[in-house]
């Protein structure tokens, strides 16, 4: 598992844009993986399997945050939909130059699976087959997700 922890962390940092959240999700990902490891069929599937756990946790977190923000501050919804969550600290973003910051915000604003597929492919460097396995879709739809994400990023810039 140690072989993949660096790229899992890179994925989580880009998905959450928050160091503390990334740390929490990292721990949760690997604890879940540790508990379920005996059920894993083969070592070949380890990488997509770890990303599947991490992606599911990111999805849960996004859902919980959306629910939370609806209860606490209904007016924050519009900002959340823009893909920018301004109410929590972005430690990782602080040092980044403005252009990179824009790109990170834009990536974080991509819709669920597209954003995850995009980060897995373009930032972490997974194969499309692995992305498909991690996101529970076909290789083609993973490829399509990355393509759509790229198109959206180009439109935004």
């Amino acid at each position: 598992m140690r072989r993949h922890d660096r790229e899992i962390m890179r994925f989580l940092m880009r998905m959450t844009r928050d160091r503390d959240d990334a740390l929490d999700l990292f721990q949760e990902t690997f604890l879940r993986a540790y508990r379920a490891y005996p059920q894993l069929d083969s070592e070949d599937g380890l990488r997509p399997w770890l990303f599947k756990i991490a992606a599911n946790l990111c999805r849960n977190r996004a859902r919980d945050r959306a629910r939370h923000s609806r209860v606490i501050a209904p007016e924050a919804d519009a900002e959340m939909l823009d893909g920018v969550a301004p109410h929590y600290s972005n430690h990782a973003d602080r040092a980044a130059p403005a252009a990179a910051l824009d790109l990170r915000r834009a990536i974080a604003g991509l819709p669920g699976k597209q954003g995850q597929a995009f980060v897995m492919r373009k930032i972490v460097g997974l194969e499309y087959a692995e992305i498909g396995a991690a996101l529970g879709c076909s290789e083609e739809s993973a490829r399509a997700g990355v393509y759509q994400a790229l198109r959206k990023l180009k439109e935004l810039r």
Partner: protein
Amino acid sequence: MSLKNMNDQLLLDLDREADDDRDLDATLAEARRRFEKALVRERRPIARVGVIDSPVGRLFVADGPRGILAIHFMDGKGPEPLETMRGKFDIVEDQAAADRIGEEIRRFVAGDRNALKHEVDLSLVESDFKRRALTKLCKVPLGSVVTYQGLASAVGAPDGQRAIGNAMGSNPIPIYVPCHRVIKSDLSIGNYGGGVPRKLKLLRAEGFAVGKDLRMPAHAVMGHQRTHIYCRPNCSAAQRADMGRVYIFADPERAQRAGLRACKICHPV
């Protein structure tokens, strides 16, 4: 900016993003530290496993923190222990630990009666009944055997000889938990998960010389645990005995060594 330039710029930015590890190393170090801490609470006991060549064939062995967890005849019929173990233990390959067990087995088969020093851990046994039967079986002294029916009586299920057969069949630690010391009530040798030749080899290593007809040695005697008397198998007292308290010894001498005296009805000397 033209579309092509926009594309190039985006790809360039993405490359830069992928290489941008400024915070990653520090965060990863912190994450690893936290995970190790959390793992301490999660960690399961370790099972050290390995494969050894022994006088009774190729064996898969697993040693846990409280004793041997599993011995599996790799060409035998017994249960495959690895899958059961995965749920309860962290499995680590450790040939040295396996070799230590292998050395004990080698000495045991060569005739060293006190060679088997490792404790056994019956936590891979599925049911309470089977665990009780195997625990009882461990008390059957070396150089003697017990019948399936006798063992069933001993665990409080006098009609449970078939269940005892199943329990012996799923014994996860043959040799150390001596399921080779269980025979049929007609005093024939019965079956064995690792094959009858291995059962004979182990019994003979313990000094229980079973003949070629697979029946008990001619001088075998029945030792009664309650009365501390041993009889010939056809003695009227032996017929009335509670089978749960009877061990069959290879010869009178072994029975005497176990602290029993000869029956005054059948004079088995």
